[in-house]
């Protein structure tokens, strides 16, 4: 079986997370820009004295497909590399994936990772 590990992290931690995943043997990932908020909500900006509360703050989302046996390790690697200890560090979650196909070769399952 395959799992999808999705991490929403602080944009400035991306390089560290990427390096850590490479070091841990992960062979591919997808990165996208995201925005959102957690318990801390957003922040306040002031323009010519007018205050705006910005709810959605910029984040980076990383998707990694991994085999079952590597899931726990990959989650740990991401948490460790993305952690600053400050509020807004993000979340990592894992969902099961029914099938994966490599577009170039047509391989399926873990062979396609």
């Amino acid at each position: 079986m395959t799992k999808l590990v999705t991490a929403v992290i602080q944009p400035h931690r991306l390089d560290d997370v990427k390096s850590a995943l490479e070091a841990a043997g992960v062979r591919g990932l997808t990165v996208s820009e995201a925005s959102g908020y957690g318990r801390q909500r957003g922040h306040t900006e002031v323009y010519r004295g007018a205050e705006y509360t910005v709810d959605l703050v910029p984040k980076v989302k990383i998707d990694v497909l991994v085999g079952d046996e590597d899931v726990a390790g990959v989650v740990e690697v991401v948490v460790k590399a993305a952690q600053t200890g400050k509020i807004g560090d993000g979340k990592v979650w894992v969902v099961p994936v029914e099938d994966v196909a490599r577009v170039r070769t047509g391989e399926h399952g873990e062979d396609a990772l």
Partner: protein
Amino acid sequence: MEFALDSGNTAWMITAASLVLLMTPALAFFYGGMVRGKSVLNMMMMSFGAMGIVGLIWVLYGYSGTFGTDVAGLFGNPFDFFGLQGATDDASLMAAAGVPFLVAAGYQATFAIITVALISGAIADRFKFSAWMVFAAIWVSIVYVPLAHMVWGGGLLGADGITSGLSTPIDFAGGTVVHINAGVAGLVLAILVGKRKGFGKEPMRPHNLPFVMLGAALLWFGWFGFNAGSEFAADGVAGRAWLNTMVATCVAMLAWLATEKLRDGHATSLGAASGVVAGLVAITPAAAAVDSYGAIAIGAIAGVLCALAVGLKYKFGYDDSLDVVGVHLVGGLTGTVLIGFFATDANSTWYPDGALNGLFYGGGVTQLATQVIVALAAVVFSGVMTLLIGLALKATIGLRASEEAEVGGVDLAVHGETAYETLGARVVTEVK
């Protein structure tokens, strides 16, 4: 007297005219960065549109209506120099400095253009572009041209006008004609067209602050042609105006930033850009009539007052989108009135006939009273005339874009363009 060309002065005035013309595209960046991304093109187009229509009108009858033979103290004869024909260089506004007629006419055109463009900041995001172009044509013809004539062309607000028993009003480079005029017109138009949908509820923060900074920088650069050029010659007075323009602007920026830091906790880039413009506006009428201390004081006072004044729209509930009132009306009034305190013939080397020293320089209240009377007269004239034009347009072609256009963005609805490639605008099928 036979006209004698002065090539040095003429070279400077052609340069100064080019600098002032640059101010309008600079304003397009300054304003364009402050609106939301969905209406930046419309915002910039209002400045470019003003260049087109006012540049044409100025050559046809605008210059003549301002500097032609006086009619009842209100405007010049528009047919004296229609199409800028029929004048020799002896009739040049700058003949005494040896600058030809057409150079003087061109220089003055750039003032009319920027004044009209300034108004557009009050009505961002929601005005019909067609209504804007018609408004620009009518407004420059029956508000700017008469007021410029009254102040600079020998009319009611000049040396021989309503204050002739007191003193000569001082408006060196356009505090009254440009900034008070545009500020009042912006206020009237903003009230007539109504608030932006979601004003005061939704965030309408600037979409591109680097544009705002770039625009402010280019405005500052162009403004040297505005103020130092208003001497009509390359001499020490132009140098005084240049220096005062620099220092008042530096101080106004610092004053705006200090006000923000104390009030909001942050010194912001928008505050720096706004402080620059506030300082430029306030020193404009006074540029050659005050010494360096006067310029520093005017910059400091304008920086603080304008920073506080931009909050008035929330208090009074009108939507002057980009603070034309807070920056140009308040800044223009500040500079115009402060001349009454700081005018000095001791160090400024420039002084119009009959003008007196200000209150702080031993001149009593005479010059102050003159400045206040002229400023109020300009407020009333500009306000009433703009109201009449606005009401007439509202009743005929309408002022406001449709609600769908406003919500979706006037760029797409009115101009058929979007400024930025976003996910929604990226998929385009080419149609031949």
